[in-house]
């Protein structure tokens, strides 16, 4: 019996150490892509319109985002009775943010347009990272809000790093930390993701995302419905709707 227990213990220890050893990174990425609906489904994604709300102690901020894959993106925001928008296309960009005192839409600089291009790709970064010359590294396991996670960094060609935390049981990304440098300053942005839901075309997407500014909930999403090119002109949404 003693022998039996000893063997049991040995197996237990072996099992334990096996379960905590670093899993093969490719395997983790594969599991992640499966969890979010698979690369084939994601590659069907051509356009997406999402309506979102941000709630802070009962008050609401509304956001509507229109995206055409690799072509253009427009975000309209409504805060306390005021409306503004941001547009990025593959050629130009516009911004009208009256909350900060802007009185008319202003064009983005060529640099801004250039550096925003990868945002135009809606497909999950772990499916496309190689296309953009990015590399991934496994940084071990870490605890995010009590959940055991795989920590993976994604480094782009400019050396900027975004670190992803994938729930070790679901393989969903639950947290993302990006470090950026601008105007001599270094800053960090943290986002959290939850309420993953299967959408049209079979892609699985987080309906809730959190950041420093609060929690954003996607209330309505439509996929691969046509979006008028006029949407990406610097005009107020109310004017465009006419």
């Amino acid at each position, binding site marked *: 019996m003693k022998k*039996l*227990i000893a*063997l*049991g*213990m040995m*197996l*237990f220890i072996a*099992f334990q150490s096996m379960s905590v050893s670093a899993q093969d990174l490719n395997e983790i990425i594969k599991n992640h892509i499966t969890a979010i609906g698979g690369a084939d489904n994601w590659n069907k994604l051509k356009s997406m319109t999402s309506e979102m709300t941000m*709630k*802070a*102690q*009962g*008050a609401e901020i509304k956001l509507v985002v229109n995206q055409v894959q690799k072509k253009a993106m427009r975000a309209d925001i*409504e*805060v*306390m*009775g*005021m*409306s503004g928008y941001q547009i990025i296309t593959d050629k130009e960009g516009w911004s009208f943010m*009256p*909350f900060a*005192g802007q*009185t008319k839409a202003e064009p983005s600089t060529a640099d801004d347009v250039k550096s925003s291009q990868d945002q135009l790709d809606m497909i999950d970064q772990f499916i496309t990272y190689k296309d953009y010359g990015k590399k991934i590294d496994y*940084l*071990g396991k870490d*605890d995010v*809000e*009590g*959940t*055991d996670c795989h*920590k993976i*960094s994604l480094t782009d060609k400019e050396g900027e*790093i975004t*670190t992803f935390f994938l*729930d070790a049981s*679901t393989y*969903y990304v*639950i947290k993302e930390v990006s*470090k950026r440098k601008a105007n001599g300053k*270094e800053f960090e942005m943290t986002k959290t993701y*939850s*309420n*993953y*839901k299967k959408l049209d075309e079979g892609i699985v997407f987080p*309906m*809730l995302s959190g950041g420093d500014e609060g*929690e954003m*909930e996607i209330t309505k999403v439509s996929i691969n419905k046509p979006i008028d090119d006029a949407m990406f002109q610097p005009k107020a949404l109310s004017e465009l709707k006419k």
Partner: protein
Amino acid sequence: MKKLFFMASLLCISAMAFAQNAVNSSMFSIMEARALGPGTMSGRVSAITGVANDNGKTLYLGTAGGGVWKSTNAGTSYKSIFDKYCQSIGAIAIDQKNPTTLYVGTGESNMRNSVSIGNGMYKSTDGGENWKKIGLDSTEHISNIIVHPSNSDIIYVAVPGALWSDSEHRGLYKSDDGGATWKKILYKDAKTGCADLLMDPSNPNILFASMWQFRRQPYSFNSGGEGSGLFKSMDGGATWKEISNGLPPKPFGRIAMTLAPSNPKKMIAIVENKATGLYISEDGGDSWKSQSATMNVCARPFYFSTIVVDPKDEKRVYRPAFEFAYSDDGGYSFSNASSDGGWVHSDMHALWINPTNTNLMYLGTDGGVYMSIDRGVTWMFQHSLPVGQFYHVAADNKDPYNVYGGLQDNGSWMAPSSTPGGVGNANWSRLYGGDGFWTVPDADGKTAYAEYQGGNMARIELATMKGESIQPKKTLKEDKLRWNWNTPIVIGKKNPKNLYVGAQYVYKSTDQGRNWNRISPDLTTNDKKKQEQEDSGGLSADNTSAENHCTVFTIAESPLDENLVWVGTDDGNLQYTLDGGKKWTNVSMNVTACGIARQAWVSSIQPSQFDKNTLYVTFENHMYGDHKTYLGKSTDLGKTWIRLDSKEFNSFAHKIVEDTENKNLLFLGTEMGLFCTLDGGANWFRMKNNIPEYALVRDIQIHPTTHDLIVATHGRGIYILDDIRPISQMNQETISKDVSIFPTPDIILNNGRFGWGGPEVSGGWGTGNAPTTPSIQYYLKERVSSGKATIDILDDKGNLIQSMPATIRKGINKVDWNLRGTPPRVAAGSTKMDGAGFTAPMVLPGTYTIKLKIKDKEYLSTVRCIHDNGNKDLSLIDRKLVYDKAMALQAMYIRLANTIDTIASLQAKLKADTVAFKKSTSSKVIYDDLEKVRAALMATKQTSMFADEEKIREKISELYGTFCSMEAKPNATQLQAIASLEAELKAQEVILDKVRKRCSAAMVY
């Protein structure tokens, strides 16, 4: 065989199931401790280095017990980057060829009595974001790391090694593969380590190593011996020869040395020997000349081992030591720095000079970091490093309570646990000087007791901070009193009028130290061989009370009986009295029976609050080279003991405390982390909770009324984990459920306890206050990955008051309700943001339902919101009045928004008929008249916050905001203003009615 395998799997599964059900730190990760710091007095800094080619913007600091800190702005602010690892730092090196690659050697090498211990080398390749352990785990202390300037794979590590024992892990190590493997390239014997290393920048194969024989015992220190010496290698460490030409006769102690980067043949060394002196070489160390130097330059070589030559100017030499000295003639004469920029903390250990702008330098002292921009003549203190080394912490019973504590080389301090604007550097007050240890408040609320090293204690009047010495003195019948470096000063837990202090005897006072009764005989082993401190130090005498031994180290009165007093000594005795000191019983032999070392220091005693015969005791034996975690429990007044242990523990223990409500909840403070058990010590987990995982936890208190866990760290200041009742109330029943909502304590309706007080003007370190409104708390067995989580608040009629997002973390969740309803809708089309959309009146007293919705399931609880009777400015009747008026203003605001919507819709209709609109003058006139009403109702022109435009909406909004935040009876003008606004709004509505009629008429056409 099959059966065997089956049984084994079963065992494995049952073990796993148990592990999954066990309580662990992640369940409580929402509970984040507040880091009070402060940066006011800071703490010992052992290493400073910077990236050479980025204008000195990137700096790394290593601290004695607070980990590694990084600045990316030349020291304006710092960020801690080593919170998951050993906090005692010996050396940091940057690979200047790839400056995001850095190495940290743990285990500080300023070998004082209180120095901590490391666990090896760490490497980061991303500027300190992520770390990998790369070996040398048993070295304990690392003094220097050098990366080869042109071959990044070559790294040298100087290892003085263990302070308290022989060790074969000492010496100089080299890696040829970036730290993957190591080989020892210079070794003398198990008593002699490598204290320092220099590399000739013009020829990196030329190395100088100083070897040092040293040893501490709990009661003495010895620096020096035949092992010490200075060595040179010409071949990258493959072969070495000792250099001695011109140096004094051996034995040597510790050698501090440097060379001039601009002329590496020029070297300076401070060689500890019988007459420690300064030596200068002009030929790369082959020959040396003695040079006279002041005491400040040569004193305490074991503690002051830094000397640096300016990177560009071989004549400019810096000697950070007891004070900061600089030389302008290559080390032949030294001057001391000026105090024009304020006092510079004595005891200096690290200096980094920006190699591209050598006027700029950073100095690490026992009290933080200073920056100089004039080559070290004057210094500015950096206030943002919360790395103070507390020995103890105490709290009083005020509301909010104050914390008190003494720090290594930084005196005794106190600060409020909460204060308007949060607790910042400026809120800390100094009580006493020297090295600080026990700092304890008296129950009278006006007095505290503090001390400096060797039992020099005083009663402090808190109103004036005047101190009166109260240290008991020996009588003719007594031996010379032996006071520990860290002498216990303890207030009775049962009777707070009892004040206890201990030398080798225990003294008790019941009149605040004005009179003392000796209540014990010598409770130590009184081993005379351990009492020869006047001969301590080795080659340089060093007797500062740090080695005083055979002393009382801890005293604890039972919380249940003031006549039951426990006393522990630094030489392994544990004794108690049941009659207030007439008779003492020594139980130390019983303790050793459970496997605890006989001579171990009794570091803390916790007599149970629930049973007089039960006690927990920590022992620590690291001064005999034994790092085991010793925690004993007895339930029969010390007759028999069990040792509580865990595989989670990895260093020696300083403190055990028992929760005030749950007798199975214990906290253990160790040299490497804070631990918690919820089952009386059977299973332990490491506490994270925003506290560095390997924090040097020296003391822990649980506040009896707030249930806050107050933690004193020896390197990261004070932490407060507010209200630990969620931990204390966690039980198997809760854990087994998928979702469990905890009862919410009554909420007192107010806007919090403190005002803001304006922006922090003194800068430096700061933290927020304890929350004053209870959170809604619930437990989730698993994180909610799919599905929504919300919390609805409903009134007693079932009306929805507010709906909020709920957090979804695994373990305990906390959601704060702002005690308000849902803000009103804001009218569209303004050019100005309006704040009313973000506020609503505070709810009235009553019972509210909390509806937690997780996916498709609902969990209900209630909370009672009660009127704040403490606020004499607001009666319950006033509260109702304020609420009604706020709601009336909200209704007015919504009415106005609806009116604006009506106008917008009319205007749109007019414009929609584009033909008519273009042709018809009357349409345009009506349109413009509508616009006039709109412009009267709300701001339509303002484009900048600096050009304010105030219309009816803005006025309602402002008054609405005032009523929503009101905590006093409204004044008559405020009430009257509501009526005025009502009239103004009404007047516009009348105008609009008329325009509307015209509009309807116009639309007919």
